[in-house]
């Protein structure tokens, strides 16, 4: 009985999956679908029976709903590269403007000189994350230097996302540990959250 129920469930699941995943039937002989696009013109095609806007060289339509670019993965890599360069720009700008002491930073001036400043998105998340990273690094480094000057031992480490920062959740962080050699229970820790997990 249990086996029969499992079989019925499996067949039902396959039927639901088929109807849910492939929205309509493709006719390879005529290079078109046999039914209209179930999502209508939201699929991006003016002809509701057409396959990939009649441009199968550049697009695919695996679900029968809308055209996709199979090379989107490479665009994601491109976005990753842009994000990384924006992060570096934010980090560098914060450092070389001495954290806002100067109006413009050395790195920004260099980008202007090279004519590539248009590339930096100063309002974007990666740029801001870079700036916050630089501020955290400066705060923790100055804390470490200060502690060393008054005779404490220090250690700065980049820690993974294991510490809970209130409602922000678990974030990576820079941690400054300081202690006095041989003094019992003198160890302390300060953490500066970084804006990524």
């Amino acid at each position: 009985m249990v086996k029969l129920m499992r079989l019925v469930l499996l067949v039902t699941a396959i039927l639901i999956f088929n109807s849910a995943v492939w929205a309509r039937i493709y006719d390879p002989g005529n290079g078109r679908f046999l039914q209209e696009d179930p999502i209508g013109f939201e699929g991006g095609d003016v002809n509701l029976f057409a396959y990939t806007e009649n441009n199968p060289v550049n697009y695919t339509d695996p679900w029968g709903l809308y055209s996709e670019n199979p090379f989107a993965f490479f665009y994601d890599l491109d976005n990753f590269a842009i994000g990384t360069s924006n992060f570096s720009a934010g980090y560098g700008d914060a450092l070389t403007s001495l954290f806002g002491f100067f109006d413009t930073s050395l790195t920004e001036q260099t980008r202007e000189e090279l004519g590539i400043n248009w590339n930096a998105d100063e309002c974007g998340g990666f740029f801001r994350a870079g700036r916050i990273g630089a501020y955290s690094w400066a705060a923790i480094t100055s804390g470490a230097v200060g502690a060393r000057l008054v005779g404490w031992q220090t250690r700065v480490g980049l820690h993974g996302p294991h510490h809970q920062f209130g409602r922000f959740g678990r974030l990576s962080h820079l941690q400054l540990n300081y202690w006095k050699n041989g003094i019992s229970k003198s160890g302390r820790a300060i953490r500066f959250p970084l804006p990524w997990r």
Partner: protein
Amino acid sequence: MPLNIVADQSNNLPSITDAIHDCWFDKEDIVFHKDSSILEIKFDREVPENRKILKNFLLLKEVQIPVIECILRIYHIKTCQITDTEKVGRYDFNKLEYDPNRSQICVRTGVPIDIKVTVNGLRIAVEETGRKLEDKVTWVFF
């Protein structure tokens, strides 16, 4: 729900690290049971999920966080080496690292103490003893 985590594969180690990270332990609470080949480290763990808010002041909150006693156990130990250069007595966990090629587990800490063990197989557990140590009162943002 009381904490009880067991890791016997290296991909389970992050859950152990999540449980012990930034928890403090005393060197005198490190015990190596040679007969059963188990290393035990008792540590204090704050439980922020059970915190009580005592006062609100702008973006700051005064909170009371219970601190409970937990134990980290590393099983199947062949050799155990602890090097304490700083002689501070109290240390904070950072993470656990497992090197399968050398069958070695390293306990990484913030305040430095070098704890390295070689094992016959990976099995690490963290559990609560059920003993409440204190209620820590502190100020936090938000």
